[in-house]
């Protein structure tokens, strides 16, 4: 499918070409059905789950099981399962909205996410007809609950080095599994586990393992820093006889499943962080307007305003880029015929096209949530440190997001890694663009863009892409394949790519909104975009300089740094002033509303 796509909407293609705004999906384009689905989810979470959060935090997991059943009755477990197997075959924007709204459920959002995502999707994507018929109707309706067992005590990021073994029995009917899987979400009550094990020592393979099988047991509940409302245990496999029909996908090809599942998992993790960030703003803004010190609501102090505004800026960047990715999935998958929709591997391939974007959303999402919950605690002051307040839990719950579904470091490394791989496979014309740029840069003269809304931001974006190409092209030339030993450079590249993705998503979204409603009605979006682009370019400049200084020296370095100076020359935005305007609006609404 990649072959027929224009470069700008291929995974990673946005770095090489201008993206048309109409190729960027925005939250302003939600349909009535999308909004109704979001509302049902929100009402379920606030009405049914929220009152039980304290009890869930105390590990009353019978409640989790009941809540999942109720969620199943409302259809909240079937969005990503085909209709043929009692699912709803909803579009990816709908399932994104469900995940976003579930984030207010605290640790229970993990129970939901693990079940519908990494638990059920391996069967949706890679199960054979018999496996799908056997498991998916129960999973989509909540009659059975799924979990995903990949990590082991000695294999985390290096997942393929798992030690769990699978040996075919003498009769040739069953694989006998032995090993221990660690930190398994939903393990207290899951009925079905997706388990990875090595056949003959080196054939990494996925299995569907039922809790009922003899030899399956779980360890005690882990004592965690956060997400205590979700069950996490060890899964112990002792001579478990798994019918050979329960091999998922091909023998020795388990990594294909693992990596594909992680793409969607990472995206959805970013989505959950978006919901969490919005909640943090709502709590912080409400508190800041009520709490008085020196006889003044603290929201009147510009220090607090700066915090609220920065939270909103990051959240707008995240929201715009999340739904941008969601829109890309839809473009890939929405046009598939019903038959193709049922072919899970086809869907998985469509999602894998955007592996880079998934990693970007994961990294930026988790770091935005850490930022917003941290600042929310700060705004609450000492009260934020007290367990009676929701922000205390939100702060603890946030931290894991930078670690699971691939640490942020692994995900950052994946961004340039995937770009290089796509370039080598001829999927992205990266080298052509990098070579073409050299001539362009020789004659490059900084411009002073006009005053039309977003004109300057678009100019900054196009220069940001040039900086990316220049820096990455230089690194590729200098190090070739050895670039993988220069991890700091790769991390910097990922951060530059992330800024570009966010800037572009925010610009396209704001531009569309202004076109629809006029600039006077979209001031908030414009202000947010101005800050995103100004701060984005500042960051890009710093990352690029740091990398170039490591790579080059002498005259070459001086020439390159002067090029960076030219590419970042601009009349800077008054960030302090703009953030005060943004804060006024956040305080007035007492929540994130753009």
């Amino acid at each position: 499918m990649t072959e027929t796509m224009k470069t700008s909407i291929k995974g990673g293609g946005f770095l090489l070409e201008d993206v048309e705004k109409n190729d960027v999906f925005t939250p302003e384009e939600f349909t009535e059905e999308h909004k109704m689905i979001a509302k049902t989810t929100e009402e379920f979470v606030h009405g049914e789950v929220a009152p039980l959060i304290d009890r869930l935090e105390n590990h009353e997991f019978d409640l989790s099981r009941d809540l999942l059943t109720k969620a199943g009755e409302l259809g909240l477990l079937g969005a990503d399962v085909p209709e043929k197997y009692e699912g709803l075959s909803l579009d990816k924007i709908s399932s994104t909205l469900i995940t976003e709204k579930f984030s207010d459920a605290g640790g229970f959002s993990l129970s939901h996410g693990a079940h519908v995502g990494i638990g059920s999707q391996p069967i949706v994507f890679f199960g054979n007809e018999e496996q799908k018929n056997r498991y998916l109707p129960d999973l989509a309706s909540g009659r059975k609950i799924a979990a995903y067992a990949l990590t082991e005590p000695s294999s985390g990021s290096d997942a393929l080095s798992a030690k769990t073994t699978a040996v075919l029995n003498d009769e040739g009917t069953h694989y006998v599994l032995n090993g221990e899987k660690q930190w398994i979400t939903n393990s207290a009550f899951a009925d079905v586990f997706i388990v990875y094990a090595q056949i003959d020592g080196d054939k990494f393979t996925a299995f569907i393992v039922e809790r009922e099988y003899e030899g399956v047991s779980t360890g005690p509940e882990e004592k965690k820093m956060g997400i205590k409302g979700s069950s996490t245990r060890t899964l112990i496999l002792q001579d478990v006889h798994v019918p050979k029909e329960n091999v998922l996908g091909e023998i020795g090809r388990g990594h294909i499943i693992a990596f594909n599942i992680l793409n969607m998992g990472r995206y959805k993790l970013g989505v959950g962080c978006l919901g969490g960030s919005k909640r943090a703003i709502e709590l912080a803004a409400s508190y800041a307007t009520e709490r008085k010190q020196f006889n003044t609501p603290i929201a009147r102090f510009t220090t607090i305003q700066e915090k609220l505004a920065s939270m909103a800026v990051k959240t707008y960047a995240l929201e715009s880029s999340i739904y941008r990715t969601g829109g890309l999935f839809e473009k890939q998958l929405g046009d598939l015929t019903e038959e193709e929709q049922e072919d899970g591997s086809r869907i998985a391939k469509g999602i894998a096209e955007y592996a880079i974007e998934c990693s970007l959303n994961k990294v930026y999402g988790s770091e935005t949530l850490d930022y917003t919950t941290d600042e929310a605690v700060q705004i609450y002051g000492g009260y934020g440190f007290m367990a009676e307040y929701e922000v205390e839990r939100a702060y603890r719950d946030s931290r894991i997001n930078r670690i699971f579904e691939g640490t942020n470091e692994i995900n950052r490394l994946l961004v340039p890694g995937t770009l290089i791989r796509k370039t080598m496979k001829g999927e992205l014309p990266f080298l052509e663009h990098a070579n073409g740029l050299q001539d362009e840069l020789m004659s490059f003269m900084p411009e002073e863009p006009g005053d039309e809304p977003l004109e300057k931001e678009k100019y900054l974006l196009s220069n940001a892409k040039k900086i990316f190409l220049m820096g990455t092209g230089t690194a590729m030339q200098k190090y070739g394949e050895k670039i993988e030993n220069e991890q700091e450079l790769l991390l910097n590249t990922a951060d530059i790519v992330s800024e570009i993705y966010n800037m572009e998503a925010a610009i396209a979204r704001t531009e569309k909104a202004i076109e629809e409603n006029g600039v006077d009605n979209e001031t908030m979006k414009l202000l947010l975009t101005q800050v995103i682009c100004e701060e984005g370019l500042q960051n890009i400049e710093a990352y690029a300089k740091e990398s170039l200084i490591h790579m080059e020296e002498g005259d070459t370095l001086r020439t390159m740094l002067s090029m960076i100076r030219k590419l970042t020359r601009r009349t800077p935005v008054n960030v302090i002033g703009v953030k005060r305007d943004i804060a006024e609006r956040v305080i007035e609404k007492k929540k994130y509303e753009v």
Partner: protein
Amino acid sequence: MNIYVVMKRTFDTEEKVEINDGVIDEEGAEFVINPYDEYAIEEAIVLKETHGGEVTVVTVGDEEAEKELRTALAMGADKAVLLDTEDLDGEMDHYTISEMLGAYFQDKAYDIILGGNVAVDDGAGQTAPRLAEKLGINQLTTITKLDIEGTTATIERDIEGDQEIVEAELPLLVTCQQGLNEPRYPSLPGIMKAKKKPLDTLDLDDLDLDEDDLEAKTKTVDRFLPPEKEAGKKLEGEPAEQVEELVNLLRNEAKVI
């Protein structure tokens, strides 16, 4: 059983109401199904589930109200009807709306019509009772329990903190009070099905009505928000002095005695 619900689209109860020049500013406000009408919709669906039949939800308004009608369909209603007020230039009141509903129901076969006890925006509680009068059928307001056996309805209703049990014959109009039921969330399959369910729009011509017949019987002269709550006043001194001061303030400042 032919079950009808008369429904109103109202401001979201969490919205802050703003008034400019005596007109409520609806810009950017969220709207919902009037919460009392949600009880009516839920009860209608329960009746259908128990007795079979069909649920039709009717509202008077403009095309914006289609969203709330779709929500009712997503909850489980079978049909929705919008009586469009686009052709009406003048002011509307409960008379206007009940006349339009009356015209719609004229040729309908209904066993029961359910509505909310009041709408949370104007709190009048007039439209449904007016409709029953217009149709010349039994009506019972503020009901908290409903059972139907054959053509007889057994109903519990709120009366000033007490319960009254009444029997009434169908066809019947009832208005629903909190406590009657717990409205369901529209399920996702319900939302997807709602897209395909019929939503008809009828204008004044379709209803065989003339604008002049619908002229409001009341006129809204002004609208204003309650005064902002001011900081309280603490009376000091001996109890007797405080009482004296309080009486003085009630008489001269608050002017309530």
